[in-house]
């Protein structure tokens, strides 16, 4: 049965989709070829924005910072999430409470998490360096140290987000048939081997999903730098998202910011496509 009235039902979403997503995707491509200050009319300048960006050393540094952050954050965050999932997988008494606690940072806003951790990271009177000093370690200056600021943001983000991927891993673990573990146990496989040769391969489709989504999210890191460092000290935590926002809304160079946005988009697409390409090498098809 064909239906005309369907139009009315999808109209709101369709308007939103056109006005806030499809339109802007096209518009920002056009804007990326213009010179456009916030209160002037855009003038067409061809590929000048892109050429200028690719020639600027700051762009490459920002790109480097972003990739460095992704490499710091993604593998560690996935390992931690999987470990948490394995820890709360067993149905023992009180496990629901632990699951709730591990998920608490996820429901908290990134802003709140970032503010709390800025205080923990305080190099003079912060709790973290105090705890480290009890262990005989002199903690770094964290957010004030160009070498430590980005790792500090990564650590905070792992704390904040691990519970999310933990839940997805937990859902994945619950789909692995018990018989497989049982059979491996009867063959005399110890728990570490069962993890390596049963759990990990059967979990690999879920791990792939987590990897793809977490990587995209990591590239977009914005709120942490906005609250904790403003890109500093120096430019050590200036990442692409923050740099795009800064170019557009601090320096009012909307043309260049649009070009940056598109380069960013292309980068994410390439990285995601690469992940799909090497998927076959390690993901077990069932």
């Amino acid at each position, binding site marked *: 049965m064909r239906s005309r009235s369907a139009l009315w039902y999808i109209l709101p979403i369709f308007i*939103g989709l056109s006005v806030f997503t499809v339109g802007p995707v096209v518009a920002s491509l056009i804007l990326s070829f213009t010179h456009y200050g916030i209160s002037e009319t855009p003038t067409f300048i061809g590929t000048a924005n892109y050429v200028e960006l690719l020639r600027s050393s700051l762009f490459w540094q920002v790109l480097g910072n972003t990739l460095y952050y992704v490499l710091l954050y993604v593998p560690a965050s996935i390992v931690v999430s999987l470990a948490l999932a394995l820890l*709360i997988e067993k149905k*023992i008494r009180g496990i629901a409470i632990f699951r709730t606690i591990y998920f*608490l940072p996820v429901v908290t806003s990134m802003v709140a998490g970032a503010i709390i951790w800025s205080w923990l990271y305080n190099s003079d*009177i912060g709790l973290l360096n*105090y705890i480290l000093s009890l262990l005989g370690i002199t903690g770094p200056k964290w957010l004030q140290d160009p070498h430590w600021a980005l790792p500090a943001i990564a650590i905070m983000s792992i704390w904040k987000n691990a519970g999310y991927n933990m*839940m997805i891993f937990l859902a994945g673990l619950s789909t692995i048939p018990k018989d497989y573990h049982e059979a491996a146990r009867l063959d005399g496989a110890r728990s570490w081997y069962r993890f390596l040769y049963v759990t990990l391969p059967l979990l690999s489709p879920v791990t792939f999903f987590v990897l793809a989504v977490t990587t995209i999210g990591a590239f977009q890191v914005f709120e942490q730098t906005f609250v904790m460092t403003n890109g500093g000290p120096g430019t050590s935590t200036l990442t692409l998202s923050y740099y795009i926002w800064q170019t557009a809304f601090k320096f009012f160079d909307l043309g260049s910011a649009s070009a940056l946005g598109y380069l*960013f988009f292309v980068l994410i697409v390439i990285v995601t496509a690469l992940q799909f390409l090497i998927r076959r090498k390690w993901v077990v098809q069932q």
Partner: protein
Amino acid sequence: MGRPAIRASKSLHYIALLVVALVMLVPFLWMIVTSLQSPETLVKFPPDLILTSPKFSNYSEVFRDLTIGTFFFNSIKISLLGTLGELLAASLAAFAFARMEFRGKKILFAVLLSTMMIPFQVTMIPVYIIMKWLGWLDSHASLIIPHFFGGAFASGAFGVFLLRQFFESIPRELEDASRIDGASRFRFFTTILLPLSKPALAVLALFVFMGIWNDLLSPVLFLSSEEKMPLTFGLAILQTVQHNFRYDLLMAGTLISIVPILIVYIISQRFVTNAFLRTGVKG
């Protein structure tokens, strides 16, 4: 394994669980402790781990001096209205995608889902310009009205996806029966389908509410005056602009911003877990 070995491995398991729980909770506990410090005890090093005289007046001070009350009210208003709008838009579209046939249905659905992949960095400048044209800059309209059309940066795709799944699970005979009784399709939608879908709507409401309450990007892009800001933006400004800010008050404000979402989460955490187990991996 013998019994003692099982017991030992079980205790080890609990110890590991507790250690991780401690790591997860310490930042929250430290926020609470800090929020009750006085300016003198705040700067002490090594810090007092136990409070000798908690300063509860910090909380009234936060409401009096920091416009936290205004931020809080703004957050409530924006999140509630935005959630309402997104539920409306998503459930209408999900109904059409689940139960009606129309030209371009499959393509449209695919386009809708693929918009989830588009990063905000690409669309935010044109969206900002659109808000300027509409005259919504520095007004709550920019943060609320887009949700009645699926949202400025998410296009409601997640909600449509979630609800469509649920609507499809409701037997078609129900609709046929109500149509035979003379009810219009829209009447079936409002009086039968939506009430039956309360569990799915609740999960979606929770996610959307949490998303709006915790969002920093949209307020940062569209708002400029302090009295319009929600908690996220207001607190972020207090943290970044006033560098020597008193962390005791900032932590009290942060705690106030977390409490509503914690209450909602703890009440509904069973639903959240189930939602993850059912839809989490499909993505």
